[in-house]
């Protein structure tokens, strides 16, 4: 370690949706790397350790090294000439960058979608059907005496959710921390999260909806046939005991993961758990929250919602935003072969989308922004190296409970931020199109707008 050391207090980790803002980072400014990250979990420590400055080209165009400016020109030409482009990703960048991405999608009359569509998108759909009994993580820390984790593994995916907010944290009305809470965990398998639970319900795969609906019925005093055990793996007695605990608790929280949304039933599962929380409010205070994954996926929902009125899966082809999951969501756009270009920011669909979608990505011009080389970067026609948000780039991110947090970067990067690259692309596209592209059929379509 060199002598040029800086300590950054109250820094923020943007690895997962917990967005822990109590990091104390020790930074070697000469080597441009973080050498110590106090308070970080195992994921946060890896995040800070592995985001030093790497020697990479500013941009690659058709595999050749290029400047950022050259990359911007090619990217802008691709977007200006595309008829049905999709702008996708955005969960690992700042709200400021997300806002510019929305403007680009609007300008080119394309589709706008975020990683929410393959995360808690079904929960977003369910919100629109039945609403959300919500709370901040601070409220849960201070008040919740019964916490039910459903379809998730926070010990591995959100390690500090337990210690900062929902299990061992000591709060105003939970002064004894763990002793003041009953923890229930529902999953199809035992995970490293299971040992924290007082009660573990191991449900059979694909039966979450049935268990949730049975709980709703029991909360409302209806009879459930004991054969529920053969169907779901959970006995009626266990369900009745859980309902009794839920009704008698002072403040209950249902924290649910992608075991509900990535499963058969999708938004019906999410709607069922949200409805269960609503039902329980006839007896006590109960909330239900999705546990969000990437660092600023919640910011993406917020930015896209306040700019378009919808959280994801938005299309601007008619000159105004329309929302239709299944039609304007990226997996569908790609798997059907609809999109003719893609601008992918801070995500890697080529490593986690279905095979058919990845095959189509290989057939269309892709523009990718990422601090690291990824599978998507490798297949992209234009691949930009950008600075890492939270470590090199300031800005705003939203914690999973919709609380905005300001970033405190640790050291400068020679690479531009996502926001800077996107702003340059937006400005150049505006020059090429002469303003927003007008929808087909509009009397002014094809006429340059000053």
């Amino acid at each position, binding site marked *: 370690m060199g002598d040029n050391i800086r300590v950054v207090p109250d820094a923020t980790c943007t*690895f*997962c949706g917990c967005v822990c803002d109590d990091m104390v980072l020790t930074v070697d400014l000469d080597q441009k790397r973080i050498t110590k990250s106090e308070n970080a979990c*195992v*994921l946060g*420590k*890896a*995040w800070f*350790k*592995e985001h030093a400055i790497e020697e990479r080209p500013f941009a690659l165009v058709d595999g050749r090294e290029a400047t950022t400016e050259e990359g911007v020109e090619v990217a802008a030409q691709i977007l200006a000439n595309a008829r049905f482009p999709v702008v996708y990703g955005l969960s690992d960048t700042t709200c400021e960058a997300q806002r510019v991405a929305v403007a680009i999608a609007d300008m080119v009359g394309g589709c706008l*979608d975020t990683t929410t*569509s*393959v995360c808690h*998108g*079904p929960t977003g*759909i369910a919100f629109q059907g039945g609403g959300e009994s919500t709370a901040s993580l601070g409220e849960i820390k201070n008040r919740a005496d019964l916490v039910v984790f459903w379809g998730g*593994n926070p010990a*591995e*995916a959100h*390690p500090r959710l337990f210690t900062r907010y929902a299990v061992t944290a000591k709060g105003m009305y939970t002064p004894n921390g763990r002793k003041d809470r009953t923890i229930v965990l529902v999953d*199809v*398998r*035992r995970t*490293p999260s299971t040992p924290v639970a007082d009660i573990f319900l*191991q449900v059979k*795969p*694909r039966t979450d909806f049935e268990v949730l609906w049975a709980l709703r019925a029991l909360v409302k005093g209806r009879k459930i046939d004991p054969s529920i055990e053969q169907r779901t793996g959970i006995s009626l007695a266990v369900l009745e005991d859980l309902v009794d605990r839920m009704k008698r608790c002072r403040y209950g929280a249902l924290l649910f993961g*992608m*075991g509900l*949304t*990535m*499963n*058969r039933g*999708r*938004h019906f599962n999410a709607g069922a758990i949200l409805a269960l929380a609503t039902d329980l409010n006839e007896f006590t205070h109960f909330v239900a929250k999705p546990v969000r*994954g990437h660092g600023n996926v919640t910011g993406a929902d917020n930015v896209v919602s306040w700019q378009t009125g919808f959280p*994801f*899966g938005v299309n601007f082809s008619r000159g105004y935003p329309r929302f239709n*999951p*299944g*039609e304007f*969501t*990226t*997996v*569908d756009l790609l*798997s*059907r072969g609809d999109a003719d270009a893609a601008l992918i920011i801070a995500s*890697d669909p*080529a*490593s*986690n*989308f*279905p*095979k*058919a*979608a*990845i095959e189509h990505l290989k057939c269309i011009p892709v523009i990718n922004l990422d601090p*690291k080389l*990824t*599978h998507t970067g*490798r297949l992209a026609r234009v691949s930009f190296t950008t600075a890492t948000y939270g470590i090199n780039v300031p800005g705003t991110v939203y914690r999973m409970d919709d609380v905005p947090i300001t970033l405190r970067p640790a050291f400068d990067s020679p690479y531009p931020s996502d926001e800077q690259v996107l702003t340059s692309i937006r400005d150049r596209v505006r020059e090429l199109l002469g303003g927003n592209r007008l929808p087909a059929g509009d009397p002014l379509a094809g006429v340059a707008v000053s």
Partner: protein
Amino acid sequence: MAVMMTLIGGRTSKQGTSLCAGKLGAEYLQVTSTVEMNVEDMARLGLSNDSKVRLRTPVGEVVLRCKGRETKDLPPGLLFMAYGPLSSELMAGDTAASGMPISKNLDVEVEPVVDGAAESGEPHHG
């Protein structure tokens, strides 16, 4: 002998830490090319830890290394693997008009590999 099982995709600590180092790195590739299987199922199929096994769905197939889990942790008939390029090979693109492809509880055909086939994702597979 091929049998049908249910595959759950998910996240793990190792997957999370190794993706920070880079998704093209050896550790990430290793983490995402391992499937966890119930030890009784493994015995029934003549598999041991690090044996190669082929998983097949109507849209694709991959060859993975398997790792045994006790019945109390992973019931018979269930498989678990960390999300990554290989789990994508098994996922269908249909989202039932929701935007969300199914990546948990996939029906997969499981078959021990006896012909010395390379694991999916090994370097010579690109």
